[in-house]
């Protein structure tokens, strides 16, 4: 079983990298982009068999280490 954790800066927290990429895309002539947010994806391969239990574990991992909840939000996807 795999867990995919996506970590992003919270809405309202300025994302300097996203802003730079937004600007660069504009310079290249790509139009119609409202906003760019850059995050990171952390893929965990788990030994767990129980999906619900795994999700709880990964939730704890995310809150403890993978994300800094002062500035970041995260979501978890469990993939078989």
């Amino acid at each position, binding site marked *: 079983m795999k867990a995919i954790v996506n970590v992003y800066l919270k809405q309202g*927290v300025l994302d300097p*990298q996203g802003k730079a990429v937004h600007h660069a895309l504009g310079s290249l002539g790509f139009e119609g982009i409202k906003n760019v947010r850059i995050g990171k994806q952390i893929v965990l391969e788990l030994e767990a068999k129980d999906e619900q239990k795994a999700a709880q574990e990964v939730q704890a991992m995310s809150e403890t280490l993978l994300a800094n909840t002062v500035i970041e939000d995260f979501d978890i996807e469990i993939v078989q």
Partner: protein
Amino acid sequence: MSVAILRFPGTNCEFDTEYAFQKLGFQTTIVWHNDATLPSDTNLVVVAGGFSYGDYLRSGSIAKFSPIMKDVIKYANKGGKVLGICNGFQILCEAGLLPGALKRNTNLHFISKYQYLKVANNNNIFLQKCEKDEILNIPIAHADGNYYIDDIGLEELKKGEQILLQYVDEKGELLPINGSVASIAGICNINKTIFGLMPHPERAIEAILGSTDGIKMLESFGA
């Protein structure tokens, strides 16, 4: 009585920090991150600058779980003095000993230069030898120095007189150097026993290197 200077894999300012404190007459001990306890005579813990664990995941995010940090948190919660310089500031925020977090600089550059700072509050043990609104010239060197705190947290910092240093020009006007909320360069906890700052006072102790403004700070820290 001794200054305990923490060293993690990737810390690179521990010897500068040790040199600065020794020059000012303090006893120092460099403490390895795998040690379980601080020296028993510690009267100041310094989390020195550098790139602990290569800044992987987030600056300071892995260092906060090192064995020595358990004792540092215990020491801090008992009212012990803790100082975090640069990466040390990031570690203290990650560990929850200081409020807020440090993000990537808005211009995405690693900013390394002398920088004017304003002493925003001096009614604390750390900046007691400085005048309020005094302007200091101290080097900064960081990529993740963009201090973030939400509006409620900022109000609390102001009310508690916890904003200690702000980035300014030579006349004292606030500068948006790296995107920090309220141009914050350094803050302390509500009890004024834990201080984190992005600038490097240990690099401003000899005139030949451009400034001696760091001495006043370091003297107060170790006293």
